[in-house]
């Protein structure tokens, strides 16, 4: 149980046991989306599929594929005329495989001679929270080669890590989104690589409420009072 290891099982965030040999930071990024492709090796008649399958939409003027959805595992598939299929929306690799097989089964029931070849995970997206605010300008200036920070365009800093080849979106609040991975281990490795860097650019804490005696300088205790008594604004989570 405690051995969370580099396996394919889903590790929920609430579980208190985090394997520190795999995740030295103590934080495990959660997978939010897995995109997989599979070749069904059979020419498909999209109009026919759209008519006979449930939860299928087909609008050839907008997009040349049937969009099919299933409830368990909750996912969406794009099915093309050539027999290739893209399955998105699942939360893990195993779910992606199960979902793809279900779609193949649906097409099989519509009497198409489908195979299940070349199943490949193309992209995995994970997210996590380091729980402290980050000084993005400092990070952008020090790691200029990897970072792109344009607050006018996007509030997050885009960090393109070279090894593993992952793109991280880092926000001021401390939330991090990792994407572009083909394997779960890449996401974990990338996060462990960036965690010490983020700690270097950690901010002290939230600005004190104006009625506090030391108006602007910061103490650690202030961090707990995250929703400060400010005029009206609800605590914004990114």
């Amino acid at each position, binding site marked *: 149980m405690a051995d969370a290891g580099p396996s394919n099982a889903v590790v929920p965030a609430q579980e208190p046991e985090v394997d520190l040999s795999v995740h030295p930071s103590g934080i495990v990024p959660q997978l939010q989306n897995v995109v997989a492709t599979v070749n069904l090796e059979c020419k498909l008649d999209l109009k026919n599929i759209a008519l006979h399958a449930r939860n299928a939409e087909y609008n050839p003027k907008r997009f040349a594929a049937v969009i099919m959805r299933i409830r368990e595992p909750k996912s969406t598939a794009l099915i093309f005329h050539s027999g290739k299929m893209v399955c998105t929306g699942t939360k893990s690799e195993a779910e992606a495989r199960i979902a793809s097989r279900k779609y193949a089964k649906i097409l099989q029931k519509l009497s198409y001679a489908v195979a299940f070849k070349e199943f490949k995970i193309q992209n995995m997206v994970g997210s996590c929270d380091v729980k402290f605010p980050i000084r993005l300008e400092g990070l*952008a200036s020090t790691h200029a080669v990897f970072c792109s920070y344009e607050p*006018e365009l996007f509030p997050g800093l885009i960090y393109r890590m070279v090894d593993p080849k992952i793109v991280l979106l880092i*926000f001021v609040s401390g939330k991090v989104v990792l994407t572009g991975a083909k394997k779960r281990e890449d996401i974990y490795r990338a996060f462990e690589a960036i965690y010490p860097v983020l700690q270097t650019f950690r901010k002290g804490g939230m600005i004190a409420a104006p009625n506090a005696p030391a108006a602007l300088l910061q103490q650690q205790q202030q961090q707990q009072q995250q929703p400060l008594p400010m005029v009206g604004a609800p605590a914004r989570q990114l």
Partner: protein
Amino acid sequence: MGDFNVGLRLKYEQQCPDCGQSDFVEDHASGDLVCRNCGVVVEAHVIDERSEWRTFADKAGICCGCLPAVDGGAGADPNRVGGPVNHLLSDGGMSTMIGGAKGVDHGLVRNLQRMQARTEVTTDRALIAAFREIGKICSAMKLMDIVKKQAEEFYKQAYDNAKSIKGKSQAAVLAAIVFLACRHTGNPRTFKEICAVVPQASVKDIGRIYKSVVRELKLEVALGNKQLEGSHPHSYMRRFMSQLNMTPREYLWGEALTLALLPQEGPEANVHTRWHGKSPTSIAGTVVYIIANLPGKTSVALPDICRTCGVADGTIRQIYREIHPHLKALIDKAGRFASHADVDQLPVPIESTAAK
């Protein structure tokens, strides 16, 4: 003749043959180089290597160095030396074209012009057209020549090396290059300002092309600090405030307030605030709003601020709501240009009604 460097023609390297001094004066009207000490004319008929004169007496049409001179009319002024050398073009930007004269057979002139057009280098034509557009954008935004030259250089580099700009809309590419040049020379402009001048390109396109050009030309390190300047509202305060006709003293207050809001160095840089990470134009707009509403300062209407800064009024109100509780402390840090009583007279921010 005194000994001088033939290549350079710098008057300061020459020595007067009579008195041996090197103190010269160029008389541009007559093209003479005169020794200030003894009055000897050291050189006559000096060729002016600056950009060409324009003699408006000519009625034949425009010649600005890069466009062909139309067949000259009877009063055509023959004093044309062409445009300044542009090293970015493969042949230096030679602008000599065939022109007719009175009595010359027009058919012959047209044939010769056609022949010449065939020898023209095609890559240059695209570059020349792009440079002309860049010039238009820069003059519309009243940018200095140095920015224009930098933009032309970047465009040439991108044109040769970066595959990413091929196939993108020309307007967006040029806008991104101008944006890059502005940032590189230390005169950052916001995306929205450039978008206002180049309406065919959207902010999203310009941003995307800008990022890919920076990545392909490996300019991240060269841009370095300038990227930070571009993302701090400090750089935009003066321009926005002067467009709104505020006084120079208010510019200083505005800049000081932005530095107090978003300190870059020192222990306060480590404090996290609710307005960190917001777009610099939004913060700039809010600061303008604050200063404009202080009693006794130039009053500006909110819609004008929104239009100049390119920010929605809801955004300004929201950021104002976040900043308002801390205003007194911030203004104190920014040099106390307004008393606490003044701050109390500022409009109270509206409580947020919509749930997030």
